[in-house]
């Protein structure tokens, strides 16, 4: 973390960048928030630890319109989102100075809370320099411990790799934290009967309060005008239980980002209701991989997306019924 701060100060001083896009200390020990830093003094609040899961690439859309360059801190998986945004001409590569920061898996406070650890005062073992595999958590009810891997975000268990796909310089070591099969959950659902599938998704989607957090955080959801905000549409009333979008919001959103979603997992991370939204996006990724060849959105900034491309011998839609 100190390395990033001193490098940021250097870049601000010599005028390479006008601002730094990073994370600042939040109200609680486990909620750092995305922030701009414009002076060396601001950087006193800079933080980079295991809870800095937020993907900053979307903030670069606005930062691309500002005067001067922006230093942006990207973790390996965030760099895929950034690449995808370049492909869609949403960010200006020349306006960004990308510092690839090391990552050894990010933590999910919800998992810690679910393990029954409440009233957290401080957590040690979250610093990126730490080699510790255990979190030492001080709570008002006494000291607790939890293994780092158990507290990791779902997306870190299916890590895309420790390499940044785009950067100007790298600071810190990364670790591939993959220890689960990416499509295992999807396959489990696919194996269910239609009734079970329906009940499963009904139970999950019933939790949705239409707070739009998943849409607002998604780097692929970067339309200036969103279909869900149109007042000519039923979606104008967010709390309207009977309206079409209340039921279909998540399917439509997943379809809008199909072929562009890098599987960064931000939607599931921010959902206040804990809906596993990545299950929708990952299903599309799985289908695209199976039907149109392996494709990782954001792996490069040039190739055509699978839904803006075709081949003459693509599978017919009846393949869905045929494969059962």
């Amino acid at each position, binding site marked *: 973390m100190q390395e990033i701060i001193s490098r940021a100060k250097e870049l601000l001083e010599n005028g390479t960048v006008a601002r730094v896009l990073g994370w600042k200390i939040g109200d609680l020990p486990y909620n750092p928030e995305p922030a701009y830093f414009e002076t060396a003094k601001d950087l006193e609040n800079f933080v980079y630890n295991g809870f800095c899961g937020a993907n900053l690439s979307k903030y670069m859309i606005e930062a691309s319109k500002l005067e001067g360059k922006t230093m942006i801190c990207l973790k390996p998986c965030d760099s895929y989102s950034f690449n995808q945004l370049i492909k869609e001409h949403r960010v200006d590569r020349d306006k960004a100075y990308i510092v690839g920061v090391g990552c050894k898996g990010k933590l999910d406070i919800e998992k810690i809370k679910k393990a029954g650890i409440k009233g957290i005062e401080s957590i040690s073992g979250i610093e990126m320099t730490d080699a510790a595999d255990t979190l030492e958590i001080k709570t008002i009810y006494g000291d607790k411990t939890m293994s780092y891997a158990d507290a990791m975000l779902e997306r870190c268990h299916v890590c895309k790799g420790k390499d940044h796909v785009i950067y100007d310089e790298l600071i810190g070591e990364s670790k591939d934290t993959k220890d689960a099969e990416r499509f295992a959950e999807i396959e489990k659902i696919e194996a269910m009967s239609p009734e079970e599938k329906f009940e499963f998704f009904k139970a999950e*989607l019933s939790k949705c309060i239409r707070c739009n957090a998943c849409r607002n955080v998604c780097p692929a959801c970067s339309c200036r005008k969103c279909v869900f905000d149109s007042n000519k549409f039923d979606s104008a009333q967010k709390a309207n239980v009977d309206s079409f979008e209340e039921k279909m919001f998540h399917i439509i959103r997943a379809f809008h980002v199909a072929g562009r979603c890098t599987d960064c997992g931000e939607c599931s991370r921010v959902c206040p209701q804990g809906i596993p939204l990545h299950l929708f996006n990952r299903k599309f990724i799985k289908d695209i991989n199976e039907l149109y060849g392996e494709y990782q959105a954001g792996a490069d900034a040039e190739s055509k997306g699978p*839904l803006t491309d075709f081949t003459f011998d*693509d599978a017919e839609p009846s393949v869905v019924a045929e494969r059962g």
Partner: protein
Amino acid sequence: MSVENQFKPKIVAFCCNWCSYAGADLAGSSRLTYPADVKIIRVPCSCRVNPMFILRAFEKGADGVIICGCHPGDCHYSTGNYYARRRMTLLFSMLDYIGIENGRTRVEWVSAAEGVKFSQTMNEFVDKIRSLGENVRLGDLRCKK
């Protein structure tokens, strides 16, 4: 089952202006029959069909949705149906994934000369939807028990 009690499905057919709509016309002028349960909506091209149209049709009470377009390679706009093919494949797969019976959606390529195929397809599709019964699942996904 008496005629009054028989389930009358509501079926929406999106037909491309250049092939399938003309195919439906040919079916009519050839005096071929297909059930009146099928409501045709003419679209400029099969790729005009936004996946949302299909979801919305179900939402508004359709029991089945069929998309008809030119045969691949014959699109009036050269490539529209190739894009539609990918989109619809992914959408149908997603509907299957969330537990919607996959017989409720179908894509069929019908040319302007295939009046017979049009009428056969529609008869088959209506029979299929009749056997599946009323569409209840897409209407109440968010309703709490």
